[in-house]
């Protein structure tokens, strides 16, 4: 009887699991290292599955195994199957009809010039007749809310729109499984939330199974049914969210850092893992700390304030010593509009950038952030107004996309090129010394292992580091960065921050950056400016800037703000936690 029961369950399980890895290992050709080691996992039908892991842990390789057209060359052992059939045995047609794939870069996936044609592309390949293509495309366009820009040229769309088109054009073939490789990495926060919401509703409405690599978990974690955690080619966890933190704690894994802030805050303060969204944790905090006397709370707020003020004072002292009152860049009444329109993109903007600080310019989409940066770097000419630069300061901007600056065939040569093309900076140095500079530069970025590699073969984060290294060899006094954290995972973001903070400290560099990334700015910038309605709407030291904002602030602040107005970082929560223990 019991036996029967068991087999029944097993059979059900087998029917439900749509993808299965069995004892699967893989190594790229030409490499002895296993990229995937002994992977055993099951993906159940109609679930949302997250794959997390540091870069190089094998996430993308894992995903690529599910599509023959993406499978890299190398040695395989074990099996990967879709509904019991081995993936490598599936033909292209059933692959296309069953497994869809959306990758990171919105531009590179678009094949045709118009939206309607892009949507039809997959169906044309399957050889459907005109009228069935028409009805399927219409249905998808309607579902994804893109019918109003159905006629448009693909190159006129925004990044978020492009990515939605990519998703829709994969969904027209009605795949059962949708593979997503960091689909929101290149999108701004609003567009990426919209995209992820769409993914969730796809799953809810159509029952599509989702397997997604995503490093910004804030918007998807709550919807995930299963999480797969990878660490150096091995699967270290497969299961629901609750067990994940326990397991990561057990392993003392850095991966914990990538979990959403509410999860971390809640775990820090309560030691439990059952609440994961901002509203949940916020409610819990309000109940938990409701008895805290006002004076203690004030003390906590003051403490947070003080810790910063101290750092500030030391900064001010050094400033006073050098007797530098005037800002390094001073923008006065700046206005700008594009040639073909009279509408100002920036109007009457005033902003001073202080020397030796990290200043972050924040703002929504199309608020003019990048335009402002281009005005400062003189790519654009101002209509009216002036930008004054301190004398003899070299100003260099790092372009947003690292691929726009790579010219050489190896990392070493890439950096050497920077030295060779700026002979004035490296006068009188012997070849040996120059080589040493390249060596040191690679070392400081942790890229020494890849010195002979082609820059294009680097991961997104590594490419960003190489680009930064190259720009630093041009010895800037003021470094401008456009969305430096775009597409980077938590770990690379931290590394970048450490690098930049180091430059400010050791070389007195001034750093100005525009970013969407509020969390990063809150943790690492000295002061923030909000660009809104063509102008600087507010400008302050970081803590003051974020304190008391309701929406435009970090998620830690959104969780804590009812009780602790100026708690904006995870480290602040630690402090509160220590204090509240005393209390």
């Amino acid at each position, binding site marked *: 009887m019991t036996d029967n029961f068991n087999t029944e369950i097993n059979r059900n399980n087998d029917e439900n699991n749509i993808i299965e890895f069995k004892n699967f290992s893989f190594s790229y050709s030409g490499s002895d290292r296993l990229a995937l080691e002994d992977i055993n996992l099951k993906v159940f039908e109609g679930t949302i599955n997250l794959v997390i892991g540091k870069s190089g842990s094998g996430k993308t390789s894992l995903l690529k195994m599910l599509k023959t057209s993406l499978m890299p060359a190398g040695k395989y052992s074990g099996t990967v199957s879709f509904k019991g059939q081995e993936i490598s045995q599936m033909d*292209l047609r059933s*692959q296309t009809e069953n497994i869809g794939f959306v990758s990171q*870069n919105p531009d590179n996936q678009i094949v045709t010039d118009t939206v309607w044609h892009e949507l039809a592309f997959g169906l044309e390949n399957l050889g459907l007749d005109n009228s069935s293509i028409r009805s399927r495309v219409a249905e998808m366009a309607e579902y994804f809310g893109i019918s109003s820009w159905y006629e448009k040229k693909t190159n006129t769309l925004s990044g978020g729109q492009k990515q939605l088109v990519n998703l829709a054009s994969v969904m027209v073939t009605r795949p059962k499984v949708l593979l997503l490789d960091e689909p929101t990495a290149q999108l701004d926060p609003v567009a990426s939330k919209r995209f992820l919401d769409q993914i969730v509703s796809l799953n809810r409405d159509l029952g599509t199974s989702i397997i997604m690599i995503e490093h910004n978990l804030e918007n998807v974690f709550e919807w995930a049914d299963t999480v797969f955690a990878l660490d150096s080619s091995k699967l270290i966890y497969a299961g629901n969210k609750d067990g994940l933190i326990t397991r990561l704690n057990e392993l003392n894994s850095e991966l914990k850092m990538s979990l959403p802030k509410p999860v971390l805050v809640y775990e820090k303060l309560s030691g439990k893992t059952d609440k994961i969204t901002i509203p949940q944790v916020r409610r819990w905090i309000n109940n938990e700390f409701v008895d805290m006397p006002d004076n203690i709370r004030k003390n906590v707020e003051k403490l947070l304030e003080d810790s910063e003020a101290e750092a500030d004072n030391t900064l001010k002292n050094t400033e006073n010593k050098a007797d530098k009152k005037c800002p390094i860049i001073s923008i006065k009444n700046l206005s700008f509009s594009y040639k073909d329109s009279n509408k100002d993109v920036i109007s009457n903007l005033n902003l001073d950038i202080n020397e030796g600080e990290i200043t972050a310019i924040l703002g929504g989409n199309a608020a003019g952030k990048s335009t402002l940066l281009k005005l400062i770097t003189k790519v654009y000419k101002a209509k009216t107004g002036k930008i004054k630069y301190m004398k003899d300061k070299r100003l260099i*901007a790092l372009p947003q996309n690292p691929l726009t600056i790579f010219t050489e065939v190896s990392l070493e040569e890439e950096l050497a090129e920077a030295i060779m093309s700026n002979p004035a900076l490296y006068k009188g140095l012997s070849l040996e010394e120059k080589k040493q500079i390249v060596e040191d530069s690679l070392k400081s970025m942790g890229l020494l292992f890849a010195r002979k590699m082609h820059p294009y073969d680097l991961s997104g984060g590594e490419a960003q580091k190489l680009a930064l290294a190259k720009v630093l060899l041009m010895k800037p006094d003021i470094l401008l960065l456009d969305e430096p954290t775009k597409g980077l995972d938590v770990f690379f973001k931290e590394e970048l921050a450490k690098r930049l903070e180091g430059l400010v400290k050791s070389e007195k560099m001034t750093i100005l950056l525009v970013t969407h990334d509020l969390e990063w700015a809150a943790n690492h910038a000295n002061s923030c400016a909000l660009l809104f309605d063509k102008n600087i709407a507010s400008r302050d030291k970081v803590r003051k800037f974020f304190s008391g904002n309701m929406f435009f602030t970090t998620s830690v602040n959104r969780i804590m703000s009812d009780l602790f107005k100026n708690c904006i970082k995870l480290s602040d929560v630690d402090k509160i936690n220590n204090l509240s223990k005393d209390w």
Partner: protein
Amino acid sequence: MNSRCPFFTKMHPLVLLIYILGILIVTMSSLNPLLLSLSLISGIAVLVFLKGRKAKLVHIIFFSIPILIFMILIQPLFYHTGQTVLFYVNESAVYKENYIYGGIVSLMLIAGVVWCMVLRELLDSEKIYYLFGKLSPTLGLFFTMILRFIPLMRERLEQIHEGEISMGRIGPNAGHIATIRNRLKEVSILVGWSLESSIETANSMESRGYGLKGRTSYNRFNFKGLDIGLIILESLALVYMIAVLVTKGFRVYYLPVIILNKWDIFNILGLIVFASFALLPIIQEIIYKIWEAMNND
């Protein structure tokens, strides 16, 4: 409103293709001054009708000038046949007939270019894609991919260029050679970047089933009764005009002596057919407007 979106442009691409090819064939295979003048005038009329206020007739004058200079002024100096001697250059005669011949050929070329402008107005990329796609789906896809990649490349090149400026690699005062060298470098970055990204594009294509046998070519056009009617009408007119051409009804000799064709009902009717064929978009619009007005009553 109606000048922006004439009824004719919404016809099936095949209707438009037969129309424009028919006119180009007839125009290009005749040297009859009357026919060519008619072709040029109706070409300009249709162009203005299609483009409305945006029609820039100045352009026609611009490209006409070099044609005229070459055909009328220069060509007779090197081509020596004719009857009426005008003057001598280096002891060779220059004949009047040659000038007239040059003028007529210019007229033909200008009319041809005007009709090509009409073609550009009538057949947008979607229609051309459809027509290519009918020939071969791969060719059609190739066409639409080119249309996709040209603006993408342009965008990328701009990004690269702006990057170079903001890294301080090219100053505003750089010399010509330095600027050219830098531009070349930018192009080489573009090539590398594009090759790299094309791998991802290829992946995206293959994962959506590109390479399967029996690819179709989707289009959003329907054959309506009116389209079929127009195609029949156009074909009949075309057959008649070609018949006139083949029977030398429009034939005119210029060199060495000018011999004009004799006019009879046969070729006069040919001219009328040609004029109404060329003005088809306008005639159709008028009929459509009248029909609409009648239905509204």
